[in-house]
């Protein structure tokens, strides 16, 4: 099993919250080191020692996954003092460790999920942090995109993408009964990211696991897959094939 080159550290006032969010994120990112650092021995609060240990553990795991460049650690926090404690820890650790750690300014749970998936996809630290921070506004940035797949004529998102070249568009019905829930969304997002061609699914970014999940696309729903530019046709075909195969749930 390969270890991803970016590790996550989850700092929460609650041990249960950190561990719970770590579990959720790990489901979609099995090769990413996700270290929970929540609560204090006395109960609710953030523990300097716990955060220190977690960051050192994350840094070591990222190092293992990345080799020479040392990898990176993305830290998610819940409320204000979790940030303060983390910043205090970063002042206390070795400079070369601190240089590879970044705080993610995004929502704790959704940010952890988005960051974990991006790390699983092989993202570097900048990309993982960006994914975690974008999780804060993905729901409002998705301004268009058909929910039912059928009435998508002239969707403006696709028009923007088509400026780079011929737009390719195909539809595919979700055959698995639960539709585009977490696991298939993660598989689909990973596949789209690997293809390296900008591609939309029902108007949203196909490489964004959160945007895909937000579609709430159920079994039987017809997805519109669209891409443009070099490799668009092959990418759309690959995505259609993946969806049609039912994500192993059919």
């Amino acid at each position, binding site marked *: 099993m390969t270890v991803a080159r970016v590790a996550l550290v989850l700092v929460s006032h609650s041990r249960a919250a950190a561990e719970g969010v770590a579990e959720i994120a790990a489901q979609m990112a099995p090769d990413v080191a996700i270290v929970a650092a929540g609560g204090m021995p006395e109960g609710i*609060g953030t523990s*300097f020692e716990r955060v220190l240990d977690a960051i050192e553990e994350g840094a070591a795991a990222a190092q293992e996954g990345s080799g020479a460049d040392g990898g990176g650690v993305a830290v998610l926090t819940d*409320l204000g*003092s979790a940030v*303060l404690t983390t910043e205090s820890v970063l002042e206390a650790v070795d400079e070369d460790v601190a240089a590879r750690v970044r705080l993610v300014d995004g929502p704790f749970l959704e940010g952890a999920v988005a960051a974990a998936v991006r790390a699983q996809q092989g993202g570097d630290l900048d990309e993982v942090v960006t994914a975690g921070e974008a999780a804060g506004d993905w729901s409002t940035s998705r301004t268009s995109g058909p929910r039912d797949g059928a009435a998508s004529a002239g969707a403006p998102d696709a028009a923007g993408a088509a400026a780079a070249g011929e737009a390719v568009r195909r539809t595919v019905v979700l055959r698995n009964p639960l539709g585009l829930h977490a696991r298939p969304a993660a598989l689909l997002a990973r596949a789209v990211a690997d293809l390296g061609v900008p591609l939309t699914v029902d108007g949203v970014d196909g490489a964004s696991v959160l945007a895909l999940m937000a579609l709430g696309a159920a079994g039987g729903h017809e997805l519109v897959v669209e891409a443009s530019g070099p490799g668009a046709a092959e990418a759309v075909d690959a995505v259609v094939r993946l969806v049609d195969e039912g994500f192993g749930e059919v």
Partner: protein
Amino acid sequence: MSLDVTWALAWVRRTAQVVAENRDLLVELDRQIGDGDHGENLNRGFAAVIGKLDGAEPPELVGDVLKTVATTLMSTVGGAAGPLYGTAYLRAAKVTGVASLDAAGVVALLEAGLEGIVARGKAQPGEKTMVDAWTPAVTAAQDAAANGASAEQVLVAAAEAAEAGAVATDPLVATKGRASYLGERSAGHRDPGAASSALVIRAAAEAAGTASATA
């Protein structure tokens, strides 16, 4: 009267004492506009500091005492107060690496403490935080020292200003920290961090008074 390690240790002990005495008050203040753990956290933190100091060799420099306070608070106080007070004491320790403090030294200590709090928490005056006690305390200390006050007098001036600053947080609407979630409803309550800051700075003045009384 100069303020040496004996004073610094007395300050810490006095602080632990007043924090324990005011634990329920601080908890109550924090319950009204926070998460209700400020008194508990500080009490635990300063009790741990006393434990650390009791078990160790007497330090040589004032800054050594403050550094022990900093690292202990940082690792035992779990809310925002841990990193904030921890950084305050840490920065203060850096500028007090001497055997004793004169008036200018006291001013430097307080200035560094405030700088640490602002660097860590990024609050401005008026946001209903401990900064609203420390800022007037530093100004008062600077003025007193400029007017030729003794080290002890500088601390007294700082303590009075910190207490007035804490009271002045009552009508403010919090725009920082957990209280900011309450918005307008945070007005009409004293900020717990400002209240505890006033206790800490008053303890420093009392420890200096005791020191000069026995000199």
